[in-house]
């Protein structure tokens, strides 16, 4: 019975991936197969040398990854721990923090546009500032990261909260009996027990930051300070531009980067199983 899933995976995952790798060495407008021209590594050379948005995109993806780890992930975990204590109104807070995750991204983009608009936005209106939140390339990445964090925090919180609920209450009791403080209990008992969840969160953060796309696309199609690899891929193949070879080369680069992380993850998981 393993046959059908294997066929599906090969057909839907491996073949397209292989196709992208092959296309990345060509120039093609996406219409007729006969129009495919073999250009060798030209696309890769162009990307690295004469394509100005590429290096900024790599840098932004890394900033994205780092930021998601440092702020929203930690914040999400803290919120989960706090809300896990069954305080008054915790259900309400849970819903409130999780709400951004449920909203459609088009709506998220719109909501933040209302905050960030230079001439008519809430932030500039309230503080009397004149910051060009979405247009200034030194600022807009951070503006978008805040909007992302707004969603990401709720997501991590929910996953972590689900994990915390699954922890055996006797562990906490034992720690309490031994006289451990709450902070100590969390770091020495709860956090290690949560290892599988931590692993999932880690992977989610890496994946989220690599495939980050929607918000920058809504803001300005990933240009002018908001370049991300995923947005560059889309710019080249979605819409009227039909640089399928070039876009594929960018996609392959993205695939290679993600494979590194996936390989590290799988290594850890397998090592765990062997234990």
């Amino acid at each position, binding site marked *: 019975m393993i046959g059908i899933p294997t066929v599906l995976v090969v057909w839907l995952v491996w073949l397209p991936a292989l196709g992208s790798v092959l296309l990345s060495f060509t120039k093609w407008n996406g219409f007729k197969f006969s*129009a495919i021209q073999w250009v060798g590594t030209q696309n890769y050379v162009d990307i690295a040398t004469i394509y100005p948005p590429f290096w900024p995109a790599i840098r932004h993806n890394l900033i994205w990854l780092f930021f998601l780890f440092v702020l929203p992930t930690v914040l999400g975990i803290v919120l989960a721990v706090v809300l896990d204590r069954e305080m008054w109104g915790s259900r309400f807070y849970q819903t409130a923090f999780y709400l951004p995750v449920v909203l459609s991204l088009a709506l998220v983009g719109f909501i933040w546009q209302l905050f960030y608009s230079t001439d008519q936005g809430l932030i500039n209106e309230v503080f009397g500032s*004149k910051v*060009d939140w979405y247009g*200034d390339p030194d600022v807009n990445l951070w503006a978008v990261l805040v909007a992302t964090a707004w969603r990401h925090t709720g997501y991590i919180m929910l996953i972590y909260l689900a994990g915390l609920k699954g922890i055996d209450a006797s562990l906490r009791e034992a720690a309490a009996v031994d006289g451990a403080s709450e902070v100590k209990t969390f770091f020495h008992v709860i956090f290690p027990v949560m290892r599988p969840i931590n692993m999932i969160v880690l992977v989610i953060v890496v994946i989220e930051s690599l495939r980050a796309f929607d918000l920058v696309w809504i803001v300005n199609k990933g240009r002018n300070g908001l370049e991300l690899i995923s947005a560059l891929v889309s710019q080249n193949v979605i819409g009227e531009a039909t640089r399928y070879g070039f876009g594929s080369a960018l996609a392959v680069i993205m695939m290679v980067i993600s494979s590194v992380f996936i390989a590290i993850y799988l290594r850890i998981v397998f090592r765990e199983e062997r234990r």
Partner: protein
Amino acid sequence: MARPAPRESHLAGTLPASVGGFGRRSLLRGALGVGALGAAGMLTACGDDGGSGSGASAKAGNVKFGINEAKGSGPANERLQAMADAYAKKAGVTVSVNAVDHNTFQESITTYLQGSPDDVFTWFAGYRMAQFAEGGQIADVSDVWPLDGIGDAFKKASTAADGKQYFVPVSYYPWAVFHRKSVFEKNGWTQPTTMDELTELMKEMQGKKMTPFAFAAKDAWAPMGTFDILNMRLNGFDFHMALTKGEKTWDSPEVRNVFSTWKTLLPYHQENSLGRTWQEAATSMAKGECGMYLLGTFVVDGVPTEAQEDLDFFTFPALDQTIGADALDAPIDGFCVASGAQDEEAGKAFITWLASAEAADAANNSASAPFIAANSAASTAKYGELQKKSVEVVQNAKSIAQFLDRDTNADLANTVITASLQEFIKKPDSIDSITTSIQQQAKSILG
């Protein structure tokens, strides 16, 4: 640009329309192998004299009509729908309308044409159309030309590289410098006719704490309007068109001159343009914070109703007397017949009618706002002052460009020029490196 595609469109043009679908495609594949140069020359020679009759010969039939305006999106949708209804009634056929949101339609055009496109669909004139003609995705409709009431300038804009028409126009909108009449009156300003007058006007506006030009570049296409007009004023229409076709280079002294002139004008433009949409810029002009705004006539959609009546415009003055000011951007919208159309004859009959004055009137009579009809015989009864003036300005123009992203290779326009113009607005001092970079990428893309 020695791409193999143009050869096919020569062949496609000469084949009878009845040779449809699979048969025709495989024929083309086979023909590709033949020494294409000789074949192309021979085929064009006999292509032109055939079928110059009116499109009435094409037989009407049921058509599928793909339109780039979603239902309920306003007058543009109302007009297209009205035309479809009027034709269905007149010809006694069924027109099935497939209405898609404007931007979605545009962004999915390649997949749309590769799938099963509607027989007739809305599209734009210029290279954006010619590119699909070269690729064989749209059908040669030269046999419906000439069309009554459609002038030569439109015919030129409907013609692809092989000299055949693949498009029929329905409407257009010029780009010009818009302003509020009341603001000009209050301050005793008149419309400038020379660059000196414009400079003086801009200085005076600054003196009154008004930003002379509203400016938005968040949508990367918006600043292209400024590039176009400066290029046409400084280097002339022919240079502009040659540049868009890739025959002139982007790092040439002429193009650098356009950017350095733009740089001197930037201080008169609204700051922080990269985060502003054109609607926001239009609003600041309507509020009187900015004096003028260089945009297409669709600017009226961005200002409140009470300001709409108050709008007026003038064309950008000459920068070089030897070149003058008789060229402008006036993008043309219209229709194409998809190559894979189920019934190409019916499609042709439909677009012939769509280009008629009757169709334009049907559209304008039943919509809340009119378009400017490409057909000179169309009624102007519904036109407001702006539209009447637009007609005049376009008729007086000697040369009409479509728009930078409609005239240029789509790959270059959408992935390189957009980002580069924004880069220039960010760093007006790095003209040399920006133009060099555009040229390097243009060379790689256009091969």
